[in-house]
Structures are given as C-alpha cells and as structure tokens.
C-alpha cells in the first residue's frame, strides 16, 4: 500500500494556501500574521528593551527570547491547558535557536528582543508557521538581520515524500516521518531541523532538497507581506 493521493487532494510538493501580513498588532514594535491552511499564527516583537533578570544580560550583544503558545481552543476541540508546558517550552527554545543565527544585536548589548507567538488555530506545522511569522515580525520591527528565515515541514507518508504535512498525514496509520526545516534565504543554511518517525538516509536528503525548494515560495510571500505594509504606509 502506498500513498498515491494526498488527504486534501494537493500535489505531493504543493503547499497549503498561505497568507502573510505584517504590522497587525499596533502596540508591538513589529508584528505579523501567517497562515498555512488551517494553521494560523500571530507574532509580536517587542524591543530591544532592558533585560531582567540581570544575570541573563550579555554585555557583548543583545539576546532574543521566543514564547510559543497554542491557545486553549486551537486544537481539534480538546481543550489545551493554557500556559507553558513541556512541549511549548521545547518549541520556544528551538524557535529562539532557529532565529539566533540571522539576528545581529551587537549594537544593543545587555538588551533583549522578545518574540511572542500565539496560535489561535492549529493543524500541524505550527512551529514552522510560528517561525515564518516571527521572521516577518522581526523585520517589521526593524531589528538588524543578516537574512530571513522561512520554515516548512517535509516528510514521508507511507513511502511518498510530501511537503507541508497536515495533521491527518502526521497521524496516518503507516510509516510516517515529519521533519520541520527552517532555511535562510541567501545562504540556504538550515537553522532548524527536527524529526519524528523514520526515514531512510536517501529519502531524507531528497526531503531536505524539497524543503529548500519550497521555502523559496514562502520567502517571496514574507517579502511581499513586508512590502505591502510599507507601500500602503508610504
């Protein structure tokens, strides 16, 4: 048995319908909205601002902190307990680590840039949607960045390599692998790589090549979101 037809009828390398918007939260220094199918994320950036507790301060450069949160009603109907849990903590950490290589806060020693990501609705690929929104929000906030980060989940469902998995595919009753990847635009460096399930080495390389290709589409979308905000403004 092989996976010949995707659950939602997409082509194997086709992404879900995506939407991006910059500057959606007026109070924040920078903000963004990113939607991939039924996964929706909002990111808000505050800072650079004073960092407390003081022992976290780095006198050489500013630091970033990510907060990832799925809203209680965001899943399939089962209430998610609000606040930090083990999973949210892990994702907050990997988001911070995925954004760190592109951010240049050497001009802002001892300061912090806080990135808050909220997900009002989820259908797999939340950390990728969070990362895409965070990247737009950081650029919108005018934080010095070396590059943009675009992220997508790739994987293998019952022997077929696919891009941008939905929940139904992640939990497909067969051998499934789910690999969220974040790629920078200019150098095509991978800043986030995680995996669930199993995949052969050969297929993994194929999947990563696919990720590098499709993140280009996401980058264009992110760029357009930023341009649209400032064209309207300017």
């Amino acid at each position, binding site marked *: 048995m092989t996976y010949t037809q995707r659950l939602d009828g997409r082509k194997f390398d086709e992404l879900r319908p995506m939407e991006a918007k910059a500057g959606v939260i007026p109070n924040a220094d920078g903000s963004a909205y990113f939607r991939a199918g039924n996964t929706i994320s909002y990111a808000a950036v505050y800072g650079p601002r004073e960092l407390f507790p003081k022992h976290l301060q780095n006198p050489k450069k500013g630091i970033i902190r990510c907060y990832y949160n799925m809203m209680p009603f965001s899943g399939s109907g089962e209430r998610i307990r609000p606040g930090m849990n083990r999973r949210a903590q892990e994702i907050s950490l990997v988001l911070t680590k995925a954004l760190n290589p592109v951010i240049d806060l050497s001009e802002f020693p001892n300061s912090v840039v806080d990135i808050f990501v909220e997900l009002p609705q989820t259908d797999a690929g939340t950390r990728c949607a969070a990362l895409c929104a965070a990247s737009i929000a950081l650029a919108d906030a*005018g934080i010095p960045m070396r590059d943009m980060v675009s992220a997508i989940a790739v994987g293998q469902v019952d022997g077929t390599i696919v891009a941008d998995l939905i929940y139904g595919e992640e939990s497909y009753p067969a051998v499934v692998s789910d690999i969220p990847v974040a790629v920078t635009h200019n150098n095509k460096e991978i800043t986030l790589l995680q995996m669930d399930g199993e995949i052969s080495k050969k297929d993994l390389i194929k999947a990563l090549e696919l990720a590098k290709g499709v993140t280009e589409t996401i980058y264009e979308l992110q760029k357009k979101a930023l341009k649209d905000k400032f064209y309207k*403004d300017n």
Partner: protein
Amino acid sequence: MDYLPGDNTYREDEKIYSKVLGLVGLSGRVIRVTPLSGPYIPRVGDKIIGKVIDITMSGWRVDTETAYSALLNVKDATTRYIKKEEDLSKLIAVGDYVIVKIINVTSQNLIDLSMKEPGLFPIKGGRVIRINNQKVPRVIGKQGSMITLIKNKTNCEITVGQNGVIWIRGTSENELLAVRAIKLVEERSHQEGLTEKMEKFLDENLKAEVASS
C-alpha cells in the same frame, strides 16, 4: 569591490546585503540603507525627552524609551551650586519629564545627559506624545519648516525629541490640534508637498474652531 558597505549593511564575499528593511541610498561609493522602522539608537548631540525614573547620589536616572536608561549628573543639570546635602527631588522629582541633550555614549550604550543649554529644561505642563522615531526628521522638516509651521499656526510650544517623544504646550484646543497635525505627518511622512498640505489642514481646522466658538 566597487562599493563600500555603509550604515545598516554588511558585506559577504563580493556582495553587500541590507541588515534592515529600508530604502537604499548611494553616496559616492558607499551604499547605505535608511530604515523604515526600528529602535532609536542614541547619538551624541541628539536632543531627547525622557522621564526621570530614579535619583542617585550625584544626579538623576532618565528613561530614554530605549533599552538603556541615561544619567543626568547634577553638574550637567544646573549652573547653580548644589550643596552636598541638598534634596535633589526639589529640583527634578521622580516622574518628571526633562528635555535633555546626549553628551556622551559609550560602546555599552551608557548615556550621559546635559541640561545646560538654552531649550533644555524640566517640563512643566502641556502634554507628551510618542511617534515612531524614524519619522522624527519628517515632523521637523527641512530646516525645521514643518515644526515651525505647526508651532506658528497652533501657537503652541513644541519640542521634538530624537527618540520620538514630543512635548506640546498651549491651550487645550490648540494642543489637540497640534497632536492631530503631528500624527498626520507621521502617517503621511512619505508624501510630497506635505508642508503645504499641513498648512491647509491647520488653517481649515482653526477656521472651524473660530466658527464653533
């Protein structure tokens, strides 16, 4: 290597990339990017408006609305002799706003302030508003054309801090009109002939005020 990386850019191999979202400018061989948004970076000589948040042994700590607070030393605050045991809160209390000038910034962004020049003083009365610090040059205008226009038309005292904090003092109606005018400049900062448009806007509103009163 035909070009050199200027403000907000960096070089990687042969190419020059922008570090921020902004507009590219070329002056000689130097490529620089003017950011469209972003934090205020303190520079020596900038006039800013800040709130006093603490009183120390030798002066006041001022919140500059950046990641860094600044120090206003007693000797840079007044020409008067201050006795050792004098209560500094009598001069400037915690919570007061001050118009000050940056006289020194270190690599760690520690800021020293001065209040010893004309036009620098603790604020009494009026109102304080905030705008995007990148729009400050437009609010001031070429040789201060925009801010002079708003000052003259609304008959308000206005000081624009480079950190995006603006102090306005006049009659209540005129203060509100000045706030609206400044917000409008911030919103339409890109447009051509903005000074003329603002003149029209202010005249119309002043006329409406006279008619209603």
